């Protein structure tokens, strides 16, 4: 009977140790699918149509990083939200948007739908970099995230008129037990920040203004608030 009791205690301790070990290991791996609200910008659309080019990986982008000093392994799926966000944004910034795979409006190009007017220009949007910092590494009280996008403006012939790299930044105070929620909020804020800059600053760039003039658009660039 005594031996049975000792064995039971031994097995209980072993089971407890394994459970604690599993919990510790699981807490070092974080998986996040960035999700959030997609607002529609309250701006006047530019009276032009564009062909929007995004690389295939834009909508499926996954960021993987192993942080130093016990920060854990992070897998962050960013593609779905940023794709939907910028689709909505460009639909509002421009009067007409056609998603295309390649440049050009020649008859043999199949990217432009039959019977649809050739767009006034093309915009290629790509994600250059996504980065984040947890409080343990930054020494601050919040998670921060940044998104770096590149916008290339090309005319109807495919010549590059303007290249602009825009960075969006976001941060969110993180509770100790909710790191993925805080990083999600910071990432959404970074995408929104980049979107706000595209909506408000991009049309005021000199090369963009020149292109708008060339396609017959009279645009009065009000100063950014």
């Amino acid at each position, binding site marked *: 009977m005594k031996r049975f009791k000792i064995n039971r205690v031994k097995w209980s301790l072993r089971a407890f140790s394994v459970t604690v070990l599993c919990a510790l290991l699981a807490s070092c791996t974080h998986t996040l699918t960035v999700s959030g*609200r997609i607002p529609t910008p309250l701006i006047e659309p530019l009276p032009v149509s564009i062909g929007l080019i995004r690389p295939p990986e834009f909508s499926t982008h996954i960021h993987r990083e192993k942080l130093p000093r016990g920060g854990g392994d992070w897998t962050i799926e960013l593609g779905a939200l940023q794709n939907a966000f910028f689709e909505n944004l460009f639909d509002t910034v421009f009067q007409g948007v056609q998603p295309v795979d390649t440049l050009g409006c020649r008859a043999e190009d199949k990217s432009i739908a039959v019977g649809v007017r050739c767009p006034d220009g093309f915009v290629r949007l790509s994600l250059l970099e996504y980065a984040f910092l947890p409080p343990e590494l930054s020494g601050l009280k919040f998670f921060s995230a940044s998104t770096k996008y590149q916008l290339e403006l090309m005319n109807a012939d495919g010549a590059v008129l303007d290249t602009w790299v825009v960075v969006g930044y976001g941060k969110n105070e993180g509770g100790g037990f909710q790191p993925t929620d805080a990083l999600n909020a910071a990432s959404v804020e970074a995408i929104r920040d980049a979107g706000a800059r595209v909506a*408000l600053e991009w049309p005021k760039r000199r090369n963009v203004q020149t292109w708008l003039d060339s396609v017959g658009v009279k645009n009065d660039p*009000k100063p950014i608030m």
Partner: protein
Amino acid sequence: MSWKAGLRVAARRVTGAFGLVPVVLLLLLGGCATTRVEQSRQTNAVLGTGEAMVILGRATYNDRETEESFTDCLADILSQGSNPIRLVSEDQFKDDLYPWFEARTAPTNANDLGRLFAEAGVQAQIDQSSIRYLAWIEGDTVTVDKGGSMSCAVSTFGGGCFGMSYWEQDASYEASIWDLKNLSASGQISADSNGTSYLAGLVLPIPILARPGNAACKGLAAQLRVFITGVDD
């Protein structure tokens, strides 16, 4: 003696002949924070029937920003009571007015409201929501001093915590109220709260929390209600 019996003896010695009464009294007395609220008013206009207010936490790109929990606390208090104020949530407001109230693009003072309202759709959106006042909340709660020491140990004979540690916190917040009908600043309300929290180790760790952030929230909310409605709760 088993560890359970040891813990019982230790707890009995802590509570003494009067039971848990001293411990409970200590907890109740310890939760004190001093608060000072000040107000500066530029107009006498108050919230009309059907009009709403928005509470926004000012976000900056440095290492300090107003905690979301503080603005949530303000919203909870103001939307309840005998004289509740109709509030539009911060998230809803930012979405409806995107991209004009993001951290990078939001107006920094009431003088910018005129230019903002000249943008297409902004005035119409504000009118649709019947938002009259916008309250920008700035500030945070910081730990200004801490000390003491506490150690906790567990062994096969029992365990417990012994020692005493403390931390002093200062909560300083300011609300800037903008009138979206007259496109001007209506006034400012500031709330400063200070308190010291303790953690006493008497076998069990006994927290005695001052919560100056909560005290600042209550003080600021009460004054904001009087400012906006002209009626005390």
